[in-house]
């Protein structure tokens, strides 16, 4: 939608500040006072030559009249309207709504933002319940122990002529199973308690690495310049990484980060990224680095605003996600498989072939962003060993590069099947818990 939200309000404020009467301004820019009045009350859209004339008369840049904090509100309200098309909200009158009812607009905007946050949180929790291997194994183990206890107790109670040897044996089994049951229940409670403390805490070395990197938005300031042994210092200072395997993973990542930071110095890289439109291939050529390294470097660029943060996802040859940088663009599954429609997986089927796509998450209609993906092979055991494939994709927010039609059709993707409500998806592998009103099982069997 055009960014003319509340331009009228700003024109009115500027005019009043300069002490110009509405009729005088209207006469200067050659429109009727009543038309200017409509513009100033956001009931008429304005742009082009008229806006330039008004800006010139008010001694202000056009951009100052067209951009402001309300733009984010308009975006939020547009997203809310797009998510519920059945309501038929008056999308063409959002500017007017924001202008006339700023308090209500701010409230609705805040609620929409909160709603998206909660949806992401719920998606993560549902994802965990559905796919967390520890939870699944623990519950299976507990149910097995309960079954053994119930079956054994039934025998003890219902068998009147049970001989002493069997009685003793079953008592011993009961004792052992009840002990194991208590242990299993206790460890499950500890696990869930820890989860409560850390919300979505860490359970594996790989997650320790991801948590370490996400807590820094993948940017590690201390490794941007040549300071000896700083990687070890950073590692030692981080008390959240507790496992040796986790420390090794982080250490390896930090060393590579430093190599890449020196090969692609931040200031020069940032300038080049803006100049080259964040195109990874052109950046790779400019800095003589490989594309996966450029992907990581792009993801490591610092940003104070979440809306300008570049996302990164890496998977291995089996499609398992091995590195995820969280952004506002695409909720990432923590466990289990991701959406099969991600360009990441398309890249995996065509090693070294670049993939570019304009994406839109099914849960966030209208929010489009650019994605680059590529996979490559490495041969850690030489020519005699197996090829190890890895694919990476970056997600470039529209705040950095606004996708255009030239980039191809918009591809609608999800996070994972369990939490995706897209009907008739050709790539669906399991029913969705959101599949109200359509028979996912039947769909799967097709």
């Amino acid at each position, binding site marked *: 939608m055009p960014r003319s939200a509340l331009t009228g309000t700003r024109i009115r404020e500027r005019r009043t500040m300069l002490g110009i009467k509405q009729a005088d301004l209207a006469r200067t820019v050659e429109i009727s006072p009543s038309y200017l009045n409509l513009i100033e009350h956001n009931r008429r859209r304005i742009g082009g030559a008229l806006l330039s004339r008004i800006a010139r008369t008010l001694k202000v840049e056009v951009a100052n009249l067209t951009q402001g904090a309300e733009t984010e509100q308009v975006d939020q309200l547009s997203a809310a309207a797009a998510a519920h098309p059945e309501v038929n909200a008056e999308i063409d009158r959002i500017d007017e709504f924001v202008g006339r009812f700023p308090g209500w607009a701010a409230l609705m905007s805040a609620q929409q933002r909160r709603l998206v946050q909660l949806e992401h949180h719920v998606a993560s929790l549902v994802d965990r319940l559905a796919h967390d291997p520890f939870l699944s194994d623990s519950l299976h183990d507990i149910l097995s122990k309960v079954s053994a206890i119930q079956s054994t107790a039934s025998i003890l109670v219902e068998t009147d002529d049970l001989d002493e040897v069997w009685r003793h044996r079953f008592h011993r089994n009961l004792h*052992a199973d009840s002990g194991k049951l208590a242990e299993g229940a206790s460890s499950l409670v500890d696990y869930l308690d820890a989860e409560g403390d850390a919300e979505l805490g860490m359970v594996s070395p790989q997650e320790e690495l991801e948590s370490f990197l996400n807590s820094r938005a993948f940017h590690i300031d201390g490794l941007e310049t040549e300071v000896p042994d700083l990687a070890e210092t950073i590692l030692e200072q981080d008390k959240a990484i507790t496992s040796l395997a986790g420390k090794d993973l982080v250490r390896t990542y930090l060393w590579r980060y430093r190599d890449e930071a020196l090969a692609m110095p931040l200031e020069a890289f940032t300038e080049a990224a803006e100049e080259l439109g964040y195109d990874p291939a052109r950046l790779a050529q400019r800095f003589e680095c490989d594309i996966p390294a450029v992907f990581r470097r792009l993801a490591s660029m610092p940003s104070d605003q979440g809306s300008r943060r570049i996302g990164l996802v890496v998977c291995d040859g089996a499609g398992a996600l091995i590195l995820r940088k969280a952004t506002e663009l695409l909720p990432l599954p923590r466990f289990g498989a991701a959406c099969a429609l991600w360009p990441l997986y398309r890249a995996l089927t065509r090693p070294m072939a670049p993939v570019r796509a304009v994406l839109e998450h099914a849960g966030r209609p209208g929010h489009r962003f650019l994605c680059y993906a590529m996979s490559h092979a490495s041969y850690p055991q030489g020519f005699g060993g197996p090829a190890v494939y890895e694919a990476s994709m970056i997600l470039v927010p529209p705040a950095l590069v606004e996708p255009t039609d030239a980039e191809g059709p918009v591809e609608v993707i999800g996070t994972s099947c369990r939490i995706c409500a897209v009907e008739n998806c050709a790539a669906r592998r399991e029913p969705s818990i959101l599949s109200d009103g359509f028979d996912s099982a039947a769909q799967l069997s097709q």
Partner: protein
Amino acid sequence: MSHHVLLIEDEPNIMEAIRFFLSRDGWKVSCHSDGATAVSEVNRITPDVVVLDVMLPNRSGFDVLKELRAAPDTRDLPVLMLTAKGQTKDRERAEQLGSSGFMTKPFSNAEVLEKLRSMVGHA
């Protein structure tokens, strides 16, 4: 004549309890705990009925059932599936693969006995 049941289950105390009450009911009971070799064990001892746990080491009970149903000799062999997961999708999958019955843990001994009796036509 007693019926022969093969119990494929990796939880030893469940196995012992089931073996005990089936034996007392007059069944001949054989036990096996590994998924990878379960099919060859079925072919070796040719039981009248199989009690098959879904979660087995090395190979799932679903895969074992699928292979049994694909072979002419075991296509019609009665198989009672046991699982700790009582989810609908597990039951549906067992039915799709051709299980003769399905029970979720925890189960009652009497129900297992009754189910097995009906599966071999033994009232």
